[in-house]
């Protein structure tokens, strides 16, 4: 009975252990991850198995009948992703029993994430669990572990400020847009240039339901391609200035050496729509929007530094909550640990 609990394990490699270039080599495609999960589950020493495979982590959870199963699992993982055993050993961790529970709960809550408190990981854990369960790779122990980890994550998030405040540039921009416009369903977005940060910011705004997105780039093909990706429209770069009054949110990320939006242009646009605010996001370096624009009434200008500083402040705030969240999770972990021990006792009778 005790043997079963002692062989609950997790083998993983995350952003804590491995730099980006190593994570790139370790990464598995969805198909390969599913195949590895099936292979491990088919082993005699492993009763249950679940693979969590995201851009920042590759983790194999399982319940083994033999505590010395670690070598076998490492060997299978190396065979799957083609990395050397030395590389895997140098950039991975191995936890057993109670530590597995604590780790799984922290991952679900987002405490172990690069962006502390991010919520995407919970969805990824849920998907991994659903897939493994569908493939019949999990059993009563892992099912209970994952379901309880989702409940614990919800509890820790509600009771602490671990998810409060946005920590990505795109989401910070969305929060600001909400503080300016309330709902975004009537807001129209103009994207100047096709930079990566601008694109991600536009995607965040799109996910919150902005009315439409228009892209203007010096290369019309780039504008057209990005507009297609975002489900918006493309206009000629030279046409954006006369149409400025139609837009509420302007995200600028061109490579122009000097400002492309100045006070007189914005002043003329705001005069034609004085009741509606302008939200300008300048993520270009050098800056695309003259800082003087911020002095205009009803114009709110944020540059990359402003957005990053808000994101960093929120991140610090979240980090300060880690210990509180961890304490809450410990209570849940102990409850589950005792339940699992009791269950195994009953099952063995």
């Amino acid at each position: 009975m005790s043997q079963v609990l002692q062989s609950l394990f997790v083998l993983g490699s995350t952003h804590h252990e491995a730099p980006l270039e190593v994570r790139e080599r370790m990464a598995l495609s969805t198909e390969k991850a599913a195949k590895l999960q099936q292979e491990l589950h088919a082993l005699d020493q492993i009763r249950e198995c679940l693979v969590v495979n995201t851009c920042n982590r590759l983790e194999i959870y399982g319940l083994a009948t033999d505590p010395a199963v670690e070598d076998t699992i490492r060997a299978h993982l190396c065979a799957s992703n083609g990395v050397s055993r030395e590389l895997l050993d140098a950039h991975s961790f191995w936890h057993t029993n109670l530590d597995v529970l604590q780790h799984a709960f922290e991952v679900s809550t987002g405490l172990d994430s690069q962006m502390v408190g991010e919520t995407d990981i919970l969805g990824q854990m849920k998907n991994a669990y659903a897939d493994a369960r569908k493939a019949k790779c999990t059993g009563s122990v892992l099912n209970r572990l994952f379901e309880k980890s989702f409940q614990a994550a919800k509890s820790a998030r509600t009771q602490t400020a671990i998810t409060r405040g946005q920590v990505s540039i795109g989401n910070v921009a969305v929060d600001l847009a909400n503080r300016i416009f309330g709902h975004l369903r009537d807001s129209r977005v103009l994207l100047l240039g096709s930079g990566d940060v601008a694109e991600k910011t536009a995607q965040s705004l799109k996910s919150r339901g902005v009315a439409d997105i228009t892209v203007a780039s010096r290369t019309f093909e780039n504008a057209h391609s990005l507009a297609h990706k975002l489900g918006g429209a493309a206009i000629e770069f030279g046409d954006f200035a006369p149409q400025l009054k139609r837009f509420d949110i302007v995200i600028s990320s061109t490579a122009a050496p000097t400002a492309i939006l100045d006070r007189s242009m914005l002043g003329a646009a705001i005069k034609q729509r004085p009741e509606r605010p302008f939200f300008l996001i300048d993520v270009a370096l050098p800056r695309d929007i003259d800082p003087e624009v911020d002095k205009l009434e009803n114009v709110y200008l944020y540059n990359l530094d402003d957005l990053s500083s808000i994101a960093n402040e929120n991140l610090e705030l979240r980090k300060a909550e880690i210990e509180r969240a961890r304490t809450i999770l410990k209570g849940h972990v102990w409850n589950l640990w005792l339940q699992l021990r009791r269950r195994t006792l009953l099952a063995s009778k």
Partner: protein
Amino acid sequence: MLNEIAITDRDALAIGAAIYSAAFLFGLITLLIRKPYSHTIMFTLLCGGFLLQTLGLNLRGAEIKACPLGNIFEITQFICWSFVLLYFIIGPVFRLRLLGFFTAGLAAALAGVSLLAPGWDAPYPPGIFGGNPWIELHAALAIFSYAVFAIVALVSVMFLIQQHGLKKKQFKGVYQYLPSVQQLDLMAKRLLITGITVLSAALIFGAVFWINNPELVPKFKLAATCLVWIGYLVVVILRIQKKLVTRRYALASIALFLFALASLWPIQSASETKVDATPVETSTSER
């Protein structure tokens, strides 16, 4: 039934003011520790304050056998009662976050100041409205319009705070709980149009009385009321023409409300002088 309640009108009003203060302090403390306050607690406290204030005004009304709008204390309490009532109507409909907190603050301030100034609760002769229903309707509508203007001022203060936060790149604390600048601006516009409509109606009903009894309406009161009305009318017209928007509009709304409040005292003083000069028999004979 009111006679059986073992509490004086001023006691009830004082407890009401204390509950408003508690609501404001509750909101302030939770915001200072950077947590969103419980809307249920805020709403319950405001309801408690409102019920006690209603009781106090009812006791006062039962005593004088008229709507208690005879002195500056009663008018202030009535304006306070009206905008809290208005909050109960517009708060849940428009879901303006923190409006409850700001309403509690203004209610506590107005009700508290009126209780702490004994001179404001000066006695006045009975039948101040002369039993004329038009003038009672005029007074009730005018007070209601002041309540609307009070909410406009609160919404404008909220707008200025949110705008300041956005301009200064402030993200934490009260800023994250306030409604958006656009919502607040739009709400202030709609409410001001409502307020000026109600005040205009109040002045029309008052004018009916004034045309029939020009000698009973003090000139100063007439001038001050018209000045408040013209001020708000100009602001509304400029807003509709989009010439006075956002920050300047918010500042104008706050300034006008302060002026409207400040004008109550001379208006009341003028009324009291007039009432003093008018024999009580005249008032009663009009009933």
